[in-house]
């Protein structure tokens, strides 16, 4: 008997069974207690409430939503808002981050100073504070009545930023962005995938032209289909009464979220980009110089592509992390997924179900982001064993 206990295989099996078993028991126990507690309080469990109408408003929505819409639609609205905010602010964060990262490695003392200051300030103050700060700043812009539009088309008011825009539904705008991203991905795939290696560049170029023609048609179709009825297709903001009319209004909540997350994210991305540039051996640039390439050509053709390849794995983690940071929008009532769930819990009392939906949503989104970006990374990463660059 004792000998059996001393047997390594028996032990290993025992440990594993014990660990997994304990975990399963824990989960079951939690669920059972949860059920019992909720029943004791007379709360009905289940997902039936998703069909009930909510009765509350959502101030920013990409799709049609009214107070009589059901809960599931509210959740979809929140999810789309989160994705929208994430997509926009991560794009800006990347743009700013790369710029600042480049500034910090540019060799220009002034640019380095500004870049460093930027990073140190915005990385060392909590995001929530920055968000509240930008929000107060935006709110303190003057009221629409007092604002003259910049260049005749952009109005920066305390009530939002007005920009010229197409009169299309939010959903179709979202779909357009999605199709553009999809087009870009296919493009990348065409130029990097192993299986197209044998196809000549000229043929591939033709394919790409077809691809972008297709994307253009799709985009156009979506735009047309998503027109708002009885409005001109293209409008610019103009004064009317107390407010600006026409054009697209970006609410201060959304705008503050975008600024805060973009800048906070940019500070982190800048650091990553900087380390990427520093990891490139100077020989690469020298080889470019020796071939007579200009500074700009060396930057765009050699150093930037290399830096991006080096930092891609780190960037992926950073993107997932930044996307999670969008939940901060709740602090100024941007109706993202978390805010909608939180309001729904407050209004419906279906705590457990909604939390499950919340977590499920984020798991799906984040795993998807990581999956897509990892595919991108696989597509562009340096080929071969020699990793010295």
């Amino acid at each position, binding site marked *: 008997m004792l000998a059996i206990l001393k047997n390594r295989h028996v032990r290993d099996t025992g440990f594993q069974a014990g660990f997994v078993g304990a975990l399963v028991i824990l989960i079951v126990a939690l669920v059972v207690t949860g059920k019992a507690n909720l029943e004791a309080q007379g709360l009905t469990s289940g997902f039936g409430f998703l069909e009930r109408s909510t009765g509350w408003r959502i101030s920013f929505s990409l799709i049609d939503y009214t107070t009589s819409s059901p809960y599931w639609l509210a959740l979809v609205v929140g999810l789309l808002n989160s994705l929208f905010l994430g997509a926009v602010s991560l794009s800006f964060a990347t743009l700013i981050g790369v710029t600042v990262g480049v500034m910090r490695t540019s060799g220009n003392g002034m640019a380095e100073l500004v870049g460093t200051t930027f990073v140190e300030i915005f990385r060392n103050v909590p995001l929530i*504070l920055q968000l509240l700060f930008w929000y*107060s700043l935006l709110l303190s812009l003057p009221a629409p009545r007092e604002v003259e539009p910049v260049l005749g088309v952009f109005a920066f008011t305390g009530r939002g930023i007005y920009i010229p825009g197409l009169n299309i539904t939010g959903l179709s705008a979202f779909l357009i962005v999605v199709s553009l991203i999809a087009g870009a991905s296919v493009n990348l795939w065409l130029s990097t995938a192993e299986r197209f290696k044998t196809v000549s560049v000229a043929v591939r170029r033709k394919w790409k032209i077809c691809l972008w023609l297709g994307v253009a048609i799709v985009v156009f179709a979506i735009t047309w289909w998503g027109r708002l009825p009885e409005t001109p297709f293209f409008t610019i903001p103009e004064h009317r009464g107390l407010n600006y009319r026409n054009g697209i209004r970006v609410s201060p909540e959304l705008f503050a979220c975008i600024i805060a997350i973009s800048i906070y994210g940019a500070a982190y991305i800048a650091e990553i980009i900087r380390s990427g540039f520093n990891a490139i051996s100077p020989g690469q640039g020298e080889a470019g110089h020796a071939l007579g390439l200009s500074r700009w050509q060396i930057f765009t053709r050699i150093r930037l592509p290399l830096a991006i390849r080096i930092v891609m794995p780190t960037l992926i983690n950073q993107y997932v992390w930044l996307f*999670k940071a969008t939940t901060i929008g709740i602090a100024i009532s941007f109706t993202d997924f978390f805010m909608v769930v939180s309001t729904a819990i407050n209004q419906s009392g279906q705590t457990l179900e909604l939390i499950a939906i919340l977590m499920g949503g984020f798991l799906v989104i984040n795993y998807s982001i990581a999956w897509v970006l990892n595919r991108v990374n696989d597509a562009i990463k340096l080929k071969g064993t020699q990793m010295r660059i």
Partner: protein
Amino acid sequence: MPISIFGAIRKKYFATPTDIVVSSILAVLVLWLLANVIDWAFVKAVFGAGRRDDCLAAEGACWSVIASRWRIVLFGLYPFEEQWRSGVACLIMVIVAALSCVPYFWNGKRLLGLWLSGFAVFYVLMRGGFLGLTPVFEQNWGGLALTLFIFAAVCILGMPMAIVFALLRRSELPWISRTMGLIIDTIRSLPLLTIMFTFAIVSPFVLPDWAVGDKLYRVIVGYAIFFACYQAEIIRGGIQGLPAGQEEAAKALGMGYWHRIGYIVLPQAFRNALPPTINQIVITFKETSLVTIIGFFDVMASGRAASGTAEWSFAHVEVYCFVALIFFVFVFSLSRYGAYLERRLGVGRR
């Protein structure tokens, strides 16, 4: 070949025509920003306690609100007469943090002892109920002290968890490592806010009554688990950086699993993982500010309470600046220290 100061400046800032343009534009931008900020924060600002009416008239910052209500920002709801305790407690935490930057404390036992004793003193002082100190319950803690308390508790609780998670994650037994991997990946892809929210709101429903505890401690546990999942991956990275021969040599000497882990693997893994660990701790401190959203009176919330009264409700930007400064001081010094360590370790690496 001597180089003049002007030459150096020229080389650094105005080497090429492009550099000249970039530098000049940036310089103008920086000066303009700086001028505005100074104008607002100093030239046109109102200083000194209780000058609300001057503030309303002034164009610049109203530092008067800080002068009048700084104690609320720092100490929150802590009883007024007892606030010295809160202050001393904060100071102790800062000292503990500073001491752990001294290489003398860089081993598991000393570091653990330092933090545990520092934390214990902090808690006892804050909580009171002995030596004639009136008891003050957690609900009345607030401001910086609460932020520091949550932060320290998360680190102290999370670090051992992280070690356990990391060891389970790289266990040779496939089911254990896979299950742990799944748990870690899942928690890592959830936002911290949702984790805190869940532990604050949901856990009372699914836990038996005796295990529920105060909301503060539930949130700390939730945050600690979140922290542990990130830190576990960092530690795992540190362990993977070790040459395989280290563990084999220990095995060949007849050392058992715990001895190998405790004496050979972990000490080296921590050394490898020091820079990312400090980075993680910095992030943890910053993100402690999220607890305000789930209803705690931390330094963010107490900041808002400071301007949340009839008298001062116009002066929120100033209070935000003050809170930002507090965070900046802490976070900046920590991250600078981390950068210094990284350089130091980088130089010493063989």
